[in-house]
């Protein structure tokens, strides 16, 4: 135990690793602060580079860059009324209203300090919950895993869209993509159409780069909105008054952190949804809800801490079960597999030093956020002036080379392009992308556990409910599917439709 911790410290405080963290921080702060570049995109762009690193520095790069990006997304939201990442969208109007009142430093300071606090809270939950869950998960058989994956996918559908039907469609498309290739229990080539390149399946990393980076660039290319103006207010000391805010809103901070971590841990839903939900909760339970929207810091305190705690929360199911909590961890899981750090309960028993190192990385990243974030706010006006007309093409060429670099094949560039175009059109018609990504990541696992269970039980469907935990997970999954339909039916029977 203690020697594993010593190894973890050595891994994290290695000079090369620290250098990677600083560079990744600057990269993350920049990507988050430029509207149109998201934290997920930062992760996707990092993958080709982390491909050439050892496991811990690779993980460090992603953990630090995403934590920084989720914070710095607040900056353009506050100064330009344009969220830097979707996770800041929930309170962009609020922060902008504060900036116009001359309180930009309070809005940004709250974003910074409570982001770091939220990240640390999420990490603490990760450190406590993940090993306990892992111990529990060691007893899981294919039946439990089947239901767990299905429950995760169901969650993704219901959490990421107000129209579950469209979420189901993208989930099915994702599962279908996962079917391509030889990688199935029977090892039969499926949907390869004679192509040797498709035998190995559709490359997950090029697909993610396409989905999260190329689609954003297409969106930029067709954006007809006039360029936004930056609020011209001097920004003073951002740390001023933060202690007073902490004393004024302890309940909000704790609630934001707890709900944020929980939403992060739910598969599919990440920082952006955590921020929307906690902002709404903050308003509902506030003593002065009428002030929300006019430039009041209360919602920013709660939602700003929630989105960063969600980041750490998302790693809980990712590390323990290999089920991503959000789109960032969906990419992370791909990276972990490439690095032979296959997620799952055995990671906790066989290589605890790697897990402890991940905890330390999270703590470090959130502590580094305070000085680096402070500096980023100082230079934010310069960052916001970076010409996106130059930046976007450069990112796209980088994506092309990055997709190529994973397997050194031009085929992956084609995969990237098609995924980007598909994601753009699907999203334009209101189809959520997160379920598709989860479908691709979890499709293989779902099928494998399904087929194994079917073989073990000799085709008896009831066997899926015979083990107690499997039965509970199965019942939960079916409840999520059918409860909404049942409730609607009951309401109709009760004659509520008469009101319409």
């Amino acid at each position, binding site marked *: 135990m203690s020697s594993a911790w010593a190894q973890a410290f050595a891994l994290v405080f290695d000079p090369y690793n620290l250098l990677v963290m600083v560079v990744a921080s600057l990269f993350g702060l920049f990507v988050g602060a430029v509207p149109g570049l998201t934290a997920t995109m930062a992760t996707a762009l990092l993958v080709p580079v982390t491909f050439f690193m050892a496991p811990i520095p690779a993980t460090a790069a992603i953990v630090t860059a995403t934590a920084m990006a989720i914070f710095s997304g607040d900056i353009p939201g506050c100064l330009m009324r344009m969220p830097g990442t979707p996770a800041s969208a929930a309170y962009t109007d609020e922060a902008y209203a504060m900036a116009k009142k001359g309180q930009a430093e309070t809005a940004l300071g709250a974003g910074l300090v409570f982001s770091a606090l939220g990240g640390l809270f999420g990490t603490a939950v990760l450190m406590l919950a993940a090993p306990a869950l892992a111990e529990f998960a060691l007893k899981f058989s294919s039946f439990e895993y089947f239901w767990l994956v299905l429950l995760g996918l169901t969650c993704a559908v219901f959490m990421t869209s107000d129209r579950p039907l469209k979420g189901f469609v993208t989930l099915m498309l994702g599962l*279908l993509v996962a*079917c391509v290739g030889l990688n*199935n229990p029977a090892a039969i080539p499926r949907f390869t159409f004679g192509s040797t390149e498709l035998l190995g399946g559709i490359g997950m990393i090029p697909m993610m780069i396409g989905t999260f980076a190329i689609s954003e*660039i297409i969106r930029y290319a*067709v954006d007809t909105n006039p360029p936004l103006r930056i609020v011209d207010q001097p920004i003073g000391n951002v740390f001023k008054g933060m202690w007073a805010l902490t004393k004024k809103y302890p309940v909000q901070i704790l609630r934001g952190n707890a709900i944020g971590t929980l939403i992060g841990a739910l598969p599919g839903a990440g920082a952006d949804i955590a921020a929307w939900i906690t902002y709404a909760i903050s308003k509902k339970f506030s003593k002065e809800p009428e002030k929300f929207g006019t430039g009041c810091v209360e919602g920013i305190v709660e939602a700003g801490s929630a989105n960063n705690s969600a980041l750490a929360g998302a790693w809980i199911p990712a590390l323990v079960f290999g089920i991503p909590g959000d789109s960032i961890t969906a990419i992370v899981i791909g990276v972990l597999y490439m690095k032979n750090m296959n997620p799952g309960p055995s990671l906790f028993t066989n290589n605890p030093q790697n897990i402890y190192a991940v905890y330390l990385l999270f703590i470090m990243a959130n502590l580094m956020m305070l000085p680096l974030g402070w500096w980023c706010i100082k230079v934010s006006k310069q960052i916001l002036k970076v010409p996106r007309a130059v930046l*976007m093409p450069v990112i796209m*060429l980088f994506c092309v080379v990055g997709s190529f*670099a994973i397997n050194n094949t031009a085929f992956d560039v084609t995969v990237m392009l098609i995924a980007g175009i598909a994601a753009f059109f699907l999203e334009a018609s209101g189809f959520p992308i997160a379920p598709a990504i989860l479908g691709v990541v979890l499709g293989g696992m779902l099928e494998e556990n399904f*087929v194994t269970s079917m073989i073990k039980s000799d085709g008896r469907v009831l066997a899926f409910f015979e083990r107690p935990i499997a039965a509970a997970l199965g019942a939960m999954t079916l409840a999520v599917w059918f409860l909404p339909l049942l409730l609607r039916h009951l309401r109709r029977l009760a004659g509520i439709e008469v009101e319409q």
Partner: protein
Amino acid sequence: MKVNDAIWGALLLLLSVTILIHIQSFPNIPGQKVGPALFPGFIAVGLAICALALIAGGLAARRRGIEQAPWIGAEAWMRSPRHIVALTLVVGVNVFYIRFVDMLGFVLTGVIYLAALFAAFGVRPRWIFPLALIITLVIHYSFYKLLRVPLPWGLLERFAW
């Protein structure tokens, strides 16, 4: 570009029927009840159900009023030639890259790639070429030299450094 749900539904229905037909050709595993066709089959059936629901929903929306649910919703960029050119180029340069990178080599392809996009996004003309060249060389150096990714030289093979 918001495409009506009914059109999406029809396309998805076509896809699911194609899959259902295609998986009939998958072999069975002797002595086992579950073959490689079962899982894609479930997905195709699920997709077909969703597709039918989308068609029903899309048509119902049209019956309520065509204005809210056109077959293909027009967006601001579809009326702006500049944006249509930009979109075409974003896709076009990638197709160009995939098609020609082996022949022309990364450096030449990269410069053309970036220059075309800079022009489309309105970078000042005198900056286009120098920026495209410098950035291509930086990306080439980082990936080719530092990360040892075998980017093709193509026409510039003789000058390889």
